[in-house]
C-alpha cells in the first residue's frame, strides 16, 4: 500500500475545527461525509488528513456509469482461467486505508448501497460473486464527499445511506482566509488576491440566478497562477474565472463585468 501513502504535506488552511473533528471520527472508525460546493477544498482536506494520520488514501472518483464491480472487484480472464481482482474499495477494506469516494452522488444509488454493510457496526464487505466475506481492517475508514448544490432531484443520496455518516460542512472561506490561501498557494501579491476574492464574492451573488455555484477558491488559484505568468488581471479573469463557468451570454456578461469593475 506504499504507493497510496502521501509523503509530502498537501497545503491546507483550516477554516474551523474540521481537523479535530475528523481526528475524532477516524479514531472511532465513524464514516465521514464531506459536504460543500465544488472547489472549496474537500479533496485537499482528505489528502491533508491522510498525510497527517500517516494512512494510505485510496481515492475513487464516482461517476454515473460506475458499477458495484468497479468498487469491489470482478473476475478477469487469465491464461489459466478466470481470477478475481479486488476493486479499490476491497483493497482499502483489506489493507486498512482511508477509502475516499469523491462526488459519491454521481454514482447510481444501486451502486452506493454496497457501502452500507461497511458503514454500520458490522464493518464487513460481502463479495457475492466470489463468495467471500471481507472483514474490514481496524484502520479502514470510509470518507465520501458530495456537493448538495448542483444535484437535481434525481441525484441524491438515499436516506439509508446518508444516515450512516457524520457530516462536515464545507463552504468557501471568508475573504481574509481566502486571500491567505491564494497567497500561500501561489505567492501572488496581496492586492491582486483581494481583487480576485472580491470578484468571487460578486460571482457568488449569482448562485441561483444563472449559476448553480459561484467561483471556487480553486478557480481563484488558477487565475492567480495565470497572473503570475504575466497575464493581466482582466485577461486571467476571463480565462480562469468567466469562460469556464457558463455558456449563457448574459451570465457571462455579468461575470465579466465583475472582473472588470473590481480592478
Amino acid at each position, binding site marked *: 500500500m506504499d504507493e497510496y501513502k502521501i509523503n509530502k504535506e498537501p497545503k491546507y488552511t483550516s477554516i474551523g475545527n474540521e481537523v479535530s473533528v475528523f481526528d475524532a471520527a477516524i479514531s472511532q472508525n465513524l464514516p465521514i461525509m464531506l459536504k460543500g460546493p465544488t472547489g472549496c477544498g474537500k479533496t485537499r482536506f482528505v489528502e491533508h488528513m491522510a498525510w497527517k494520520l500517516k494512512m494510505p488514501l485510496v481515492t475513487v472518483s464516482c461517476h*454515473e*456509469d460506475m*458499477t*458495484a*464491480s*468497479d468498487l469491489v472487484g*470482478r*473476475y478477469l*480472464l487469465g*491464461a489459466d*482461467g*478466470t481470477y478475481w481482482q479486488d476493486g479499490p474499495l476491497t483493497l482499502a477494506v483489506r489493507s486498512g486505508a482511508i477509502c475516499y469516494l469523491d462526488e459519491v452522488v454521481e454514482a*447510481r444509488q444501486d451502486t452506493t448501497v454496497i457501502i452500507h454493510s461497511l458503514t454500520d457496526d458490522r464493518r464487513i464487505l460481502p463479495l457475492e*460473486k466470489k463468495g467471500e466475506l471481507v472483514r474490514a481492517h481496524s484502520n479502514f475508514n470510509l470518507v465520501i464527499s458530495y456537493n448538495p448544490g448542483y444535484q*437535481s*432531484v*434525481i441525484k441524491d443520496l438515499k436516506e439509508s445511506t446518508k444516515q450512516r455518516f457524520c457530516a462536515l460542512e464545507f463552504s468557501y472561506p471568508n475573504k481574509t482566509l481566502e486571500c491567505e490561501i491564494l497567497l500561500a498557494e501561489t505567492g501572488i501579491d496581496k492586492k491582486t488576491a483581494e481583487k480576485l476574492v*472580491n470578484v468571487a464574492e*460578486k*460571482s457568488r*451573488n*449569482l448562485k441561483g*440566478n*444563472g449559476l448553480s455555484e459561484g467561483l471556487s477558491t480553486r478557480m481563484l488559484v488558477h487565475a492567480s497562477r495565470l497572473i503570475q505568468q504575466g497575464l493581466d488581471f482582466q485577461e486571467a479573469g476571463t480565462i480562469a474565472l468567466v469562460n469556464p463557468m457558463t455558456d449563457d*451570454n*448574459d*451570465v457571462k*456578461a*455579468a*461575470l465579466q*463585468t*465583475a472582473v*472588470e*469593475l*473590481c*480592478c
Partner: protein
Amino acid sequence: MNDDPGPDIKRAVDIKDGLNPAENALWQKCNDRIKNAGYGPRLSNLYSELSILILHQFGAECLQSFTSSLSLVAVKASKSDAFLFCQATTLLIKSIPNAKDFSDFHEIVLELARKNPANLRALFDRGPNIIRQLGFERWLVWVESGVKLSINNSLRGEQFFNLISQESKQILYRQAGNFTFQLLERQLRLETRALFGITPILREIYDDKREVVKHRSSFSGKIFMLPSAYANSGNREIDTYRAASFHLAAHYVYGGGRFEIEKLKPMQIAIISIIEDARVEWLASEKMPGLRKFWKSFHSVSPDGIATAPSLLTRLSRALIDPDFNCSDAWVQKGKKMFFQAQESWTDPRVSRLIGNLLGHDLGQLRVQFNAKDYVVNPNYKDDNLGLWDFEQDEMDMSNQNELMVETTEFKQNKSKNGETQKNKEDDNVQEDNETGIVKTARIEEDNGILVTKLAEYDYQRRVLREDWVSVYEFKPLNGTTNYWQVLEENYSSLIRRTEKLVGAMAMGRKLRLKKQAEGEKLDVDATIEAAISYRAKKIPDTNIYEGNTPPQRSIAIHLLVDTSASTGEKIISSDRTILDLEKDATGILMKAVDKLGDPIAVTSFCSIGKDQVRIQRIKYFDESLNLLAGMNISGMQSQYSTRMGPVIRYTGESFKNVHALRKLVLIITDGEPSDIDVSDKDYLVHDAKHAVNYLKNLQIDAFCVALGNQAGERANEIFGKSRCVTINNIENLPDQLAKIYLRMTS
C-alpha cells in the same frame, strides 16, 4: 405639415431637363392621368413636381405604382388626403433610401388609405418629425404596426398615430435604439445581482413625455425603471443601460430613506440630487474601483463655458465623480471642495442635503435662471431622482415628470393597501416576492382573466418579429363534473386497459441486456467460454466477456395543447358528440397513460379573440398530480372563439423552464387551420405558428400536432412538417389514437 418642400421642388425643375425621351413620355402620361382625374390644380401641380423626383430617384416602376396609390387615396379617402399624401411624400422623399423602401412606404400608406383613411392625416402630420428622430426604416416599422392595429378601429389608429396610446409609444420608443431594454433586461438584472447582491425588478418606461433623447431612468425602491431605448448614445447604448442600472442599484444599496421636500426649491432639489448621486457612486466604487472609472467615462462636459444653471449642474456632477476635473467656475469648485472635505461623512445621506442646501443658496445669489420644466439631469445614465424625494401631491411642480410621478404615487398607494409601507432591507427576500407580486401580477380583468404575458408575433410579409404584440390571458378552468374519471373509465375501460398494457410494455422494455461488453457486473458465459477456447488454442481472445444492461434512459416531459375554438363545438357526423367531447376523452386517456409512465405532463386549452386576448386555461401543470381537480378541469373545457396557434406555442416554451427532462415535447390537438378575427390573411397565422415551432426547436423542444380532419391536416403539415404531424380523418378514433401517437413519438 408646415415644412416647406421648396428646395426639392426647385431641384425637380433642374432634373426634368435631364430626363430622356422615354422617361419624359412616362412622366407626361402619369401627369395627364392625375390632371384629368379632376383632383384639382393644387394636387396636380404638387404631383407634377414630385413625380419628377420619384422618377429620378426610384425609377419608372415606382412612379407608376405611386400614381396608382395616389389615385386610390383620392378616391377612397379624399382629395385633401391625397394632397396630404403627396405633400408628405415630398417631405419624406429625401429620407427614403431606395426604391424598395419607397415602394414599402407607399404600400403601407395605401393599406391605411384602404382600411382607415381617417388616420392618414395623423400619420403625415407627425411623420417628418418622427423620421428625424428615428430614421426612415424604423419609422416605417412603427407605421406598419399602427396600420395593423387600426384595422376596423379608426379611433385606435388615431390614438396610435397621434402618439396617444401606450402601444404606439412603446413601439415607437423601442425603435429608437439598436439595443433596447427588452434585449438587455436579463443581462442587466444579472449584472446588478452580481455587483450589488440585489435582484431589481426592472421595468420599461415608454410613456415619458419628453423627447426620446431626454429619457432618463427612475426608481422606486427596488423597482428600477429604464427607458425603452437610450437614443443618441452612439455606440454606448449597452454601456448606458449598464451604467444606469448600477447607478440605481447604488441608490438602493447606499441611499437612505426618501428626503422630505419641505420648503426646498426645484433648483435645490436638483443640486441635492446631484450630491446624492455622487455620494452613492463613491460608496459603491469603494469595493469596485472600476465602477467609478466606468461612470466617469460618461461625463464629457467641458470645464469652461457659459454659466447657465444646467451647464453648471452638469459640471458639478462631473467634478464630484472626477477629482481631476478642473473647472474654473468658483461655484463648482466650492461644491467639489465641500463634497470631498465631507468624505468621512459620506455614509450619512444627510450630508448630501447639507451641502446641496448651501450650494443651492449660493447659486440663488448668483441669480442664475433655473427652469425646472426643461431641466434634464446629465449624463444620460443618471436617473431623474424622483425616487430620492418624498413628494406631496401639491408640491409636484416639475410638470414634465408628472406622469411618472403619478405612477410612482400609485405604486406607493398600492403598497400601503397591502400593508407594506416601509422599505425593509432586512426582509429583502420577502419584500422582493411581495413587490414582484404587486408589480408583476397583471391586472385582473372583469371576467377574472389575468394577463400572464405578452408575446411576439411574426409577420412573414415584413419579415419582422413584433415584440410584445400578443396578450395572453389566463382564465380559471371552469369546473366540470366531479365524476369525470369514473365516466371515462366506464366508457373506455377496454381502451384504457389496452393503453396501460402498451405503456407497461414500454416501461418494461426500457432495460436491454447487452452481451460481449468490455466491462460489466457479470461474466457473459458464452463470451467467456469462447475466450477460454481461444486462450488454449493460443489465439488472441476477445476481451469483451461481460454482460450488462442499458441504464433507464427515459426522461420526457410533455405539454399538451388542446384547441377549444368555436369549431370544436360542432357535432361529428352520425354522432351526438362534439369534437371537443372527443378531445376531452383523448386528453384524459393520454394523461392516465403518461402518468403511468411517470412522464411529467401539463395540459392547457386555448382559444383567442384577436391578438389582444389569446385565452388559455391551465388544466394541469407539470407538478400537479392527476386528481379529481384535473378531471373537473378537463370536463369543464368549452368551445369558443378562434384559433391563434403561434402565441400559445411560444407560451409553452416558457412553461418548460423549470422542468428537468432530457426530451421536451409539445403536442397540439387542433381541428382547423389557425384563424382569428383580426387577421384576414390566412397565411399570416400559419407563418407565425411555423415561426413559433422553430422558436421551440431552438429551445430544444419538439412540437407535434394531431390534426383532426383533412383541412386541418394540410395546414398542420405546413406548420409542423409532415413527419411531426398526424392527421386523423375519422375523428371518433381520436381517443384510441392519441395515446398511441404519443408513445410512438416518445419511444
